[in-house]
């Protein structure tokens, strides 16, 4: 079973995402950027879902660290955020994210479909 890591500080969102994606994947979670970074190294996920605004280390910090590592850089990364200002989006793409989505514009099924499209099941 493929592994998905969700890095998200908001409890309810994390719970919902986990529940949805657990139908098809082995799901790992982290609630801040620092923890997420450790988990990326330990769990070797096939895909990372990354929130932007988080305590300790935010999503930009996580992406910065990932890009320093040739192996981690290869892992598909999808940013999930509540913001989505054009400047942020440009920056996210520049930093190597596969995709970004604004949480209010998506529902769990659409997210699940997106993940399937990127890594299959």
């Amino acid at each position: 079973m493929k592994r998905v890591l969700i890095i998200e500080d908001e409890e309810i969102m994390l719970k919902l995402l986990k529940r949805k994606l657990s139908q098809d994947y082995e799901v790992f979670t982290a609630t801040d950027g620092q923890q997420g970074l450790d988990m990326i190294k330990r769990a070797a996920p096939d895909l990372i879902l990354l929130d932007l605004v988080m305590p300790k280390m935010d999503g930009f910090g996580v992406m910065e660290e990932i890009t320093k590592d040739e192996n981690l850089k290869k892992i598909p990364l999808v940013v999930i955020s509540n913001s989505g200002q054009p400047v942020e989006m440009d920056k996210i793409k520049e930093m190597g994210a596969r995709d970004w989505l604004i949480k209010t514009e998506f529902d769990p099924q659409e997210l699940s479909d997106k993940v399937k499209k990127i890594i299959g099941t």
Partner: protein
Amino acid sequence: MFNIFREKKQTELNLVLDDLTALEQYIHDLFNFSPLPVCFISPIGVILEVNPALEKVTGFKMDEVIGESIEKIFDKDEASFLIRDTLKEGVVDNRELLLLSKGGNKIIAQVSTRVRKDENNETVGFFISLSDLTRIKKTEAELKRIQEALLNILEDTEQARKKAEEERNKTEAIIVNLTDGLVFFDRNHNLAMINPQAEKFFGVKAEDIVGENIKSLINSGNFALPAKFLGPEIKTVFRKELVLDRHTILEISTSAMGSEGEDLGDLVVFHDVSREKAVERLKTEFVSLAAHQLRTPLSAIKWSLRMVLDGDAGKIKQEQREILEKTYQSNERMISLINDLLNLSRIEEGRYVINPVALDLAKICLQVIESFKDSFSNKGLKFKIFQSSLKPIFVIADEEKLKLTVQNLLDNALKYTPAKGVVEVSLKQIGKNVRLEVRDTGIGIAKEEQGRIFSKFFRGSQAVLIEPTGTGLGLYMAKNIIEGHGGKIGFSSEQGKGSVFYFTLPKQKKGVSL
């Protein structure tokens, strides 16, 4: 002896007499010869003798005046004063009198007199000598006239100079005290003038850069930044922003100055918008932050409801589903409101048109219309589309924003047109532009509210009654987007009958991109 003496005496007497006669003749000749008009007057003012020069100047023959009163040739009053003064003082020097000529002309003459006395010291009369001042007077009058004219001219010139100076001072005061920076380049692109505010903006001194060509200003010195911005040819700009430093943003406009078709040069205006920009930034940041903070719980609600509705959290009853579905719809409305606010703050930041590409406006319209079809039929509205051609109509635009604009116009038509009404969308090509029109038979807009219809947060009083939840941002955004794309937006409306909203965008050839 006695006879001899007598004879001798007689001879001597004759000699004396001869001498006297000769002398008299001499004097007479001299009198006649004198170019100076002279006459001899008796103490009571009778002319006793005149010389030819006087005849000439007065035009009277000798026999016409001798024996006549002096008043024949002089003004009556002046003559009596002259006689009185002469007899009293013995002489009158250089008095100006009017001489009356035969022809009736009055000649200005300068007159001197001197009394003549006999051996008993009795006054026997007086001489009058006069010189004709007419020509001198004429010349004098001419000179005076010229002098006056010159003085007038001088005075006029002085007045004009003063007025010009006042105007200049006024203009200078305006230029000097203007809170905008002003710089003037002559037609050869040499800096001809810089006002104190512009000196302050760029930290330059007029005396250091006036006369310099823009090309050399670009290369060095504190004026290099604005000079580079303007370019060596001083390009035409209107309200373009120039970031000077962290605290100062200037808006630059240029204006070509000309007089009667002659190119005089370019005026460059630097308007300090730092404060406005700072306030705008703060406001935008606030709106962004607020929108972000509001979206977080909304997305949690959305996802929770969706998962429950999708059965991911176990089976739910039909009644529960209906309630949750309604809640989900309300939440979606909240989300779209927040999105409006976010979009709005982005529009105002000027970074809204982020992805301009060549788009088929007809296709975009049909896509948006498609998503509205159900809503129109559900409400019982008749919906028509007119398209002048089925060929693609390309415009350079940001797809998302253009869709949003069409959506906003259709959304208004849908909301504010009562059941059984008609909504028509037409797409026409007019010259170099394409025009989209949305016509409805809705509630219309009251005349007194029409001026504010594109204002931020403004909502028509009728519209509020029908749709209490609107944000008053749709048309405001539409206007910003269309104008940001170089187009025009407008409307006509009659209350109770309906409205027509339209926008035009410049057409592009296929495949052209920015």
